[in-house]
């Protein structure tokens, strides 16, 4: 369709009689203003955290208290990440919560210098890494704060910290040891 044939204003088409009576917009009192439209709830990357949305709300409760925890299967004694509601080995659904060690060392790291997802563009450049926790058989992925990426090294000591993301939810990240 060329620009010349595209109507810029709406225009009646067809024969209204054939499809029913046309409405009479000018008749009657002015309509009441529409109720304020509820905006869509955007699922961002951060998980839903409250007990009405997740059975893992205890993780986030502990996070607010400063501890990163996870679930362990009391039968297999296997530490699971991320925290779960059923053991992937024995499929038991009675798991126990344990706090994770707060320290670890960088196993690998990189940085996002561009191409960040929505909501993270203003944080570029930022570093991420895989961290071997001290005293627990887990290698966690996370944001690494504290030093520019160019000053990080494999084996560098880091610690876990929790933080308020600003809308009532909390999350965790790593920070280089000073």
């Amino acid at each position: 369709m060329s620009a010349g044939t595209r109507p810029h204003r709406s225009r009646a088409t067809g024969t209204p009689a054939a499809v029913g009576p046309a409405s009479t917009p000018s008749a009657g009192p002015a309509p009441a203003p529409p109720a304020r439209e509820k905006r869509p709830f955007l699922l961002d990357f951060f998980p839903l955290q409250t007990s009405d949305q997740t059975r893992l709300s205890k993780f986030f409760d502990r996070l607010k208290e400063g501890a990163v925890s996870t679930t362990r299967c009391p039968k297999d004694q296997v530490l699971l990440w991320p925290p779960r509601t059923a053991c992937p080995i024995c499929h038991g659904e009675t798991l126990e919560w344990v706090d994770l060690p707060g320290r670890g060392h960088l196993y690998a790291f990189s940085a996002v210098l561009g191409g960040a997802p929505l909501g993270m563009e203003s944080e570029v450049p930022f570093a991420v890494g895989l961290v071997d926790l001290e005293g627990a058989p887990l290698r966690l992925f996370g944001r690494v704060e504290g030093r520019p990426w160019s000053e990080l090294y494999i084996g560098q000591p880091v610690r876990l910290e929790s933080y308020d993301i600003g809308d009532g939810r909390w999350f965790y990240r790593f920070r280089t040891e000073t």
Partner: protein
Amino acid sequence: MNVRDVALVGGTTTKFGIRSSTWAELAQEVGAALFREIPELRAEDVDSFFLGAAEPERFAFQSHVAPFAAEQMGLRPHRIIQRTELACASGQSAIRSAYAAIASGLSDIAVAVGVEKMNLPSMAEANTSMACVMDRAWDGPHGATAPPFFAMVAQRHQLEYGTTEDQMAAVSEKNHRFANSNPEAQFYEKKFSRDKLLRLPVVAPPLRLGDCSSMTDGAAAVVLVAAEFVRSYTDRPAWIRGTGQYSNFHNLANAGSLTDWAGLRHAAREAFARAGIGADQVDFAEVHDCFTISEIIEYEMFGWAAPGQGGRFAADGQADVGGKVVVNPRGGLLGCGHPLGATGIAQAVEVHRQFAGTVPLARAVPDPEWALVHNLSGSANVHSVMIYQRGGAA
């Protein structure tokens, strides 16, 4: 139950790149191209339809995409119609599903198609979609996308084996050079020397722009048929002889070693065992070079290079024409671009074209009999392998 032999009898792809076309238009374009490419193909004979599409809900805001795509292509499948989603391996999943359907006797003639539209006015939104391939709630909030993950893989490979940026650039130079003979490739007319590649900006250290495949729009389609129908379409079929697949983990914490891709070794072993061949018999391979380091590790996992020697294998030209095995003659994901769902289908199209001898001399593999196609998906947590044998008049 007897398993029937299944052949790929032809296929085609659209131009890959930044396309001024919608998702639906790409599907129509590949449908029109497919019927031109295979004049014997009649829409009413296509009983089943498998669509590889990774993220149409996010990239095109469209669900129920298999019938949507079938309508764009003028098809009314009457036995099986479904979408296959396996992120970057969605296309190969479509072929694998068609293969299983035909082998089992549920389908006789199937179309497997891949469509992806990734270039949007907001690239941050596209990056967000890509990040959803990871464990969104636990890895996503940290900013986990493919580049930083594969950058860590490269960093570990450098640390453990001494792999160099120059060796990684050798992979990129080779695949971009092959893409220069492929008009459908995103980087068809772009020249990349190793020196130029090593001067490109760093995206996620140590990976530079030239180490990474692109966000690409494109579509590809193939026709698969049971043995008894092959002669109606071609005298140069590509027979599917083996498949293997392995899903090892999903959350990044459960990756284990970043440089030993056990899932790929498992998938390859299964595929080779089914085909009854060894890695040394493969004449050429279309493998998943989403990043240069991926192709380097794949040489090692398939057994073409010794563990840790993938970088040297590339730099020595062992993956080039005249080397041990020709890897990614189509141009790879690095040279062709990576429209997620279309990639695995386009790799299979290249296998058929190489067997039929219809590719330009610059990327022609001499007298190939066996070809391998590999896709990884996500954080290399899933690996999918298929093995093809050339059939018909040689």
